[in-house]
């Protein structure tokens, strides 16, 4: 199984780009199918075929144009603020997805299939949120403490998985999946107790984070994008340096490629498992802080949204390379931001975007999976 995972994560850049393009084409087919005008025109296809193809073009172009307007630049609106708002929305969505994707990339590169980003994001958000809500300190102290608390929360929750793997050999895939439930249910419960629930609230929701713990906004009140985005860019550079230029990152990669050789070379495997999961969890924890201290401001059970799972795809799409993860993260942020406009202006369901995202995963993962299922040999290296 590990071999299959390795192959999935080593898809070439060309494969990856083609997978994205093919997914959009497939999404286009679905949009055309679901479009009423296309269905009507299909009824008299042989009488006036041009109508049919025009209808297809209009539906697909209309949908993707709306996606573009919602994600990058809305040329149909008046005023520069309204026109550039979409790209800032994209960046706001991309921030937690990319951060968490970076964390997963670190784990995947080290041979650990961390599926626990959702739980780690929630832990980061809980830790950061508690500090942000309950303490009253000046910004220069409050904000850093809240962010660091979130990073520590994610790191601890991740490290625990590494510790279980190192001491008992527990499979990290299963443990992280179960830990996601633990985190979600713990968060849900704490939101009904005085620990996190806002005083007097009936719903499971926390009080607002104090202003002194919030990520400052980047471009003023009109845009949601905040300094968490800058933090994310710094994290990309830091993770790149860590993996490629630091001795610990080197040991992580050695462990990921060949644990036996790493062990023989004197690398402490158990300790490295814990460190890998701590670093991975810390980045997802940081993603949690950008949510609670930046975008959301209130803690709810939905604080991690689907970012933790999107992050898996983003790490896959970015081929576990920090720069690749950044590009993939922004693409996914854009899909999320654009989907809303697409639905509002063209009536194309948001689910189409989910289909496109899922198709990307299928197109990248399927060839190795199909080969593994049917025990076909990979094209390269047929010789023994």
């Amino acid at each position: 199984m590990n071999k299959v995972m390795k192959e999935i994560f080593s898809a070439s850049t060309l494969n990856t780009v083609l997978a994205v393009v093919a997914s959009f084409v497939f999404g286009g087919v679905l949009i055309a199918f679901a479009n009423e005008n296309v269905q009507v025109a299909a009824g008299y296809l042989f009488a006036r075929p041009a109508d049919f193809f025009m209808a297809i073009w209009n539906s697909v172009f209309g949908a993707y144009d709306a996606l573009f307007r919602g994600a990058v630049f809305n040329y149909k609106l008046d005023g520069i603020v309204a026109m550039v708002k979409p790209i800032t929305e994209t960046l706001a969505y991309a921030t937690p997805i990319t951060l968490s994707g970076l964390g997963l990339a670190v784990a995947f590169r080290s041979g650990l299939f961390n599926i626990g980003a959702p739980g780690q994001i929630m832990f980061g958000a809980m830790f950061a949120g508690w500090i942000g809500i309950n303490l009253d300190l000046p910004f220069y102290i409050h904000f850093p403490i809240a962010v660091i608390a979130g990073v520590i929360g994610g790191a601890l929750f991740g490290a625990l998985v590494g510790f279980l793997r190192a001491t008992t050999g527990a499979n990290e895939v299963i443990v992280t999946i179960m830990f996601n439930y633990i985190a979600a249910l713990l968060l849900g419960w704490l939101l009904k107790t005085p620990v996190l629930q806002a005083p007097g609230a009936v719903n499971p929701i926390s009080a607002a984070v104090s202003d002194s713990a919030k990520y400052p906004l980047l471009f003023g009140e009109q845009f949601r994008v905040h300094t968490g985005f800058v933090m994310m860019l710094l994290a990309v550079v830091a993770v790149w340096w860590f993996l490629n230029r630091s001795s610990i990152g080197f040991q992580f990669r050695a462990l990921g490629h060949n644990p036996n050789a790493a062990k023989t070379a004197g690398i402490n495997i158990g300790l490295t498992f814990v460190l890998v999961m701590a670093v991975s969890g810390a980045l997802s924890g940081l993603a949690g802080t950008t949510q609670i201290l930046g975008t959301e401001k209130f803690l709810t059970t939905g604080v991690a949204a689907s970012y933790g799972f999107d992050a898996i795809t983003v790490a896959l799409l970015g081929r576990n390379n920090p720069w690749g993860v950044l590009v993939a993260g922004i693409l996914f942020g854009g899909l999320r931001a654009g989907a809303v406009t697409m639905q509002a202006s063209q009536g194309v369901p948001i689910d189409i975007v989910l289909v496109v995202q899922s198709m990307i995963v299928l197109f990248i993962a399927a060839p190795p999976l199909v080969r593994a299922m049917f025990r076909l040999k990979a094209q390269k290296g047929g010789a023994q």
Partner: protein
Amino acid sequence: MKLELRGITKRFGAMTANDNVNLVAQGGQIHCLLGENGAGKSTLMNVLYGLYQADGGDILLDDRVVKFSGPGDAMAAGIGMVHQHFMLIPVFTVAENVILGHEPTKFGGLLDLESARAKVREVSARFGFELDPDAIVGDLAVGVQQRVEIIKALIGDAKVLVFDEPTAVLTPQETDELMQIMKQLREQGTAIVFITHKLREVKEVADKITVIRLGKIVGEADPSSSANELASMMVGRAVDLDVEKAPAKPGSATFKVAGLSAWNHAGTKVLDDINLEIHQGEILVIAGVQGNGQTELTEAIIGMHGKTHGSIELNGQQLIGKNVKQVLDLGVGFVPEDRTEDGLVAEFTIAENLMLDRSDRKPFAKGISLQLDVLKKFAEEKLKQFDIRAQGISSKASELSGGNQQKVVLARELSRELSLLVASQPTRGLDVGSIEFVHEQIVATRDRGVPVLIVATELDEATQLGDRIAVMYRGKIVGIVPSDTPRSVLGQMMAGISS
């Protein structure tokens, strides 16, 4: 029966594993196919056995072209194969294993084990095998298991019998016995193809020798040729097989193992009261058939074996209880048995592999920051010093040949200040040229006054490289003897008989 391979060509991608290979094997002859590891011997035999389809050329049996789409076809045509790794089911009896795949049945589809037993008795009597058809295969010695494989092929009425590196797992005595069996089969008119890279065996039984190098037949050799002549044909240049080394000048015994026992996960004792000493400037070879505790001994020294009891002392320091890193830090160099599995990270570059055990310390790291310029200089120097043939230091380890991979491992391990060198089968699977180089490096390390422990499974390597030889059998040291001990005595010791 006459087997002929005519112009067989087999390609894997850009690599040509067999290039227009011709080979004729006659009944009543032993035909040796001699070549180094990776020369294309096994590929050729897999083509013959129907496991691979040739890209060109024909297989002829008694001058008629035949096509095999799988081993079943080959077996039906009368070709049997004794594989290097036995294809036997350990929990089945001899008779059950022998009939596997073509089970005889009685009325009503019931398994006819009685006829199988009778057949095993008949064939084993014919060759003097003394096989009990009801013995469980897993309980038999390796050499006896091999006879089960041979009987399996013979019962399928094989007229051509292919032996693929059959002696790799045998003791010297068992090897001698196998040679006798081959000669017997020859008398009975079977055509035998014997694949090997061991010159001694070739010289003993071959009627005809075909040498294969880099996928091509380089020529036929006479069985009376000298070992050096055969080796030169195999390698393509003049070689000298003898290890050149001056007599050892042993210093004080700095490495001492006393009363060392170890248990595996299942709780079985794998090392039993091991006692040995190695002096500075001396090579001690642990000889023995694979799987008699050698791996566990090296693991125990290096700190990777869990349950151990006893004492391993290096320069007065106790190694038991220390982890791998602490052991390496005391100056232990370790060349593992399986270099691709334990010695190298295939996806890493040569340079990265060279710092695998020291990536977190000076000069390769300052704090946690890797010093890539230091590494580059170091790697370029080692590339030259150890004659590692590669495009450059950024070539991946997986792109290197076995010999060059081993040079990378050696370069890493020998570039530290050593107080002990442990090398497990350091020349396994290497070409002759690399073997020479590895041996030179090991002797040079000895001459610098380092105690050296080598694990060897081939007697030739043990006697040539070692200053003393310790023979292991079932986790015990049978005896420690000088390296000029006769082969026959060493062979008996490897079978557990102490002199």
